[in-house]
């Protein structure tokens, strides 16, 4: 729009943003909190069969969420699943962020040939579906949390490279960077001192959104049997077991699904809220 300064922002938008941020924060913090508690205390043993207490319903004393077909405590399994989600999600998103930042900053600040090479490679990797990478890795190395994290990293890194490169370029063309260059500052200094602080917001948002995506992919892979296996527990694995052993109508198929939806929704809302708060354009309009 021309003369944006002439047109004040409608104040209604800002109130909505905070709702998204607040709900996201509450859901995410509860999720993190539950996983944290699971490190110290679980109501039961998530892997210990108990044939006398099979398929207890929701609300049974001692087994608040009931038990599964082998009599294992559901609540404990859900809490363990939260832990797995965080481990795999944070693992995949952090590795992607690290690799993506190095490659993205390198592409943004290096010459044309390096830039083109990195970006075209990213394009190629981006067109290989993540599930395919995961299947190949599972076929060669066997499945498990480690393999899943590697597959997620291979799948997500190209997106991080793209986003971080374009954010970095938008900073690198700013006048203050040109000025720093004229002072004789080196590339690493400029990247660390000027670019990184200015793209930190983008990186945080990207991390949050891909944390959520990683949880979805991990659940999918575990559901297929090429992700996390017992004795580790994943929500996807729980759902798969429930479907195979007692059929879809069981409440056992509801809990893990609901857990995934709430957590992913929370992280996505948090990411969107953070983006809106940090978006310099919106911030300027709000002032």
């Amino acid at each position: 729009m021309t003369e944006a300064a002439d047109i004040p922002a409608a104040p209604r938008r800002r109130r909505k943003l905070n709702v998204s941020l607040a709900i996201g924060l509450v859901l995410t913090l509860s999720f993190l909190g539950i996983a944290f508690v699971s490190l110290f205390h679980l109501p039961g043993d998530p892997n210990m069969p108990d044939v006398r207490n099979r398929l207890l319903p929701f609300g049974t004393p001692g087994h608040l969420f009931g038990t599964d077909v082998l009599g294992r405590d559901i609540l404990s399994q859900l809490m363990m699943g939260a832990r797995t989600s965080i481990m795999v999600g944070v693992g995949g998103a952090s590795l992607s962020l690290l690799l993506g930042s190095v490659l993205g900053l390198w592409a943004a600040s290096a010459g044309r040939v390096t830039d083109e090479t990195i970006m075209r490679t990213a394009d190629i990797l981006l067109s290989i579906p993540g599930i395919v990478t995961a299947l190949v890795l599972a076929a060669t190395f066997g499945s498990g949390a480690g393999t899943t994290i590697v597959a997620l990293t291979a799948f997500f890194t190209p997106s991080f490279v793209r986003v971080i490169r374009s954010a970095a370029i938008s900073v690198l063309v700013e006048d203050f960077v040109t000025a720093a260059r004229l002072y004789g500052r080196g590339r690493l200094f400029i990247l660390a001192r000027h670019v990184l602080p200015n793209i930190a917001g983008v990186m945080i948002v990207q991390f949050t959104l891909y944390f959520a995506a990683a949880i979805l992919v991990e659940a999918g892979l575990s559901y297929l049997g090429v992700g996390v296996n017992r004795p580790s527990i994943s929500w996807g694995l729980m759902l798969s077991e429930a479907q195979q052993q007692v059929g879809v109508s069981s409440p056992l198929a509801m809990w893990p699904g609901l857990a995934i939806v709430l957590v992913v929704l929370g992280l996505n809302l948090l990411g969107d809220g953070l983006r809106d708060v940090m978006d310099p354009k919106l911030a300027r309009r709000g002032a």
Partner: protein
Amino acid sequence: MSEQAIDVRDLVVRAGGLRAVRGVSFAIPPGGRMGLVGESGSGKTLTALSLMGLLPAGLGATGRILHDGADLLTLSDRRFSNRRGRTLSMIFQDPLSALNPVQRVGEQIASVIRRHTGAGRQAAMAQVVDLAAQMKLPRPEEIVRAYPHQLSGGQQQRLMIAMALSCYPQLIIADEPTTALDVTVQREVLRLLSAAVDERGSALLMITHDLPVVAAMCETVAVMYGGTIVEIGPVAEVFRDPRHPYTRGLLDSQPDIDRIAPDGSSRLESIPGMVPPLHALPKGCAFRPRCAFATELCERMPPLEGGARKAACWHPVSGPRGAAP
């Protein structure tokens, strides 16, 4: 009903709880030309968009805008749409972003003609070629088949003018029509705009911060500050003898090529302070915090008073320019 090409009465534009335009009134007679000047944020673009009924979402206009026998603010979107491009039309600042990038420019103009005159495809296209020729575009038959990105800024703006004028509107609003163009083509585009407006007998509302353009093209001028008109009157009188301290400051901060001293001793005046943001407008006269003549009286809103020329100031300055302290 009003005989004017446009008659605006007490226009207010609200954004949330704030008033971005705070009671603007003016009229332009058929074929008349008025300049609307002011800094960014003064409300001049919002005023123009109100006349077109194209305010961004979240902003609302109240008051009366009389044009072509109707109060535009009471029309439904469908009936208002029928007038846009036909009885009143607008030219925007940046022609490249104002033209549809995925449609040939000729087709864009032809669709306007077909919409409002019911002309057939070929007849409309022939008119477009004529219009392009009138706009002194080289090889008009070819140029109308181009996409916007294939043309220069000057060519784009000339076609934009052709589109806005294609249906002989009673009123043309031009919002900074040459700001985005190279200095070398600005003059030519303005000359073509002026000629085309003359030929159609349209009235012109010229929004700009370029005072010499107003002096060259317009009969009257309205100066906006803080969402209100602070001074309005015939261009020659207002520019020679401004009454409002803001108008005077604005004129004094124009570089005047005739007065540049060869020894480099000439000074460019500037108005101290900054335009206050909308939510921090002072009580009373909006210019008060920057005004050298402000007194307690200025905490009350001064009325826009006078005859043919009016100024909203409790302490109007007078005397030809240059004499001020």
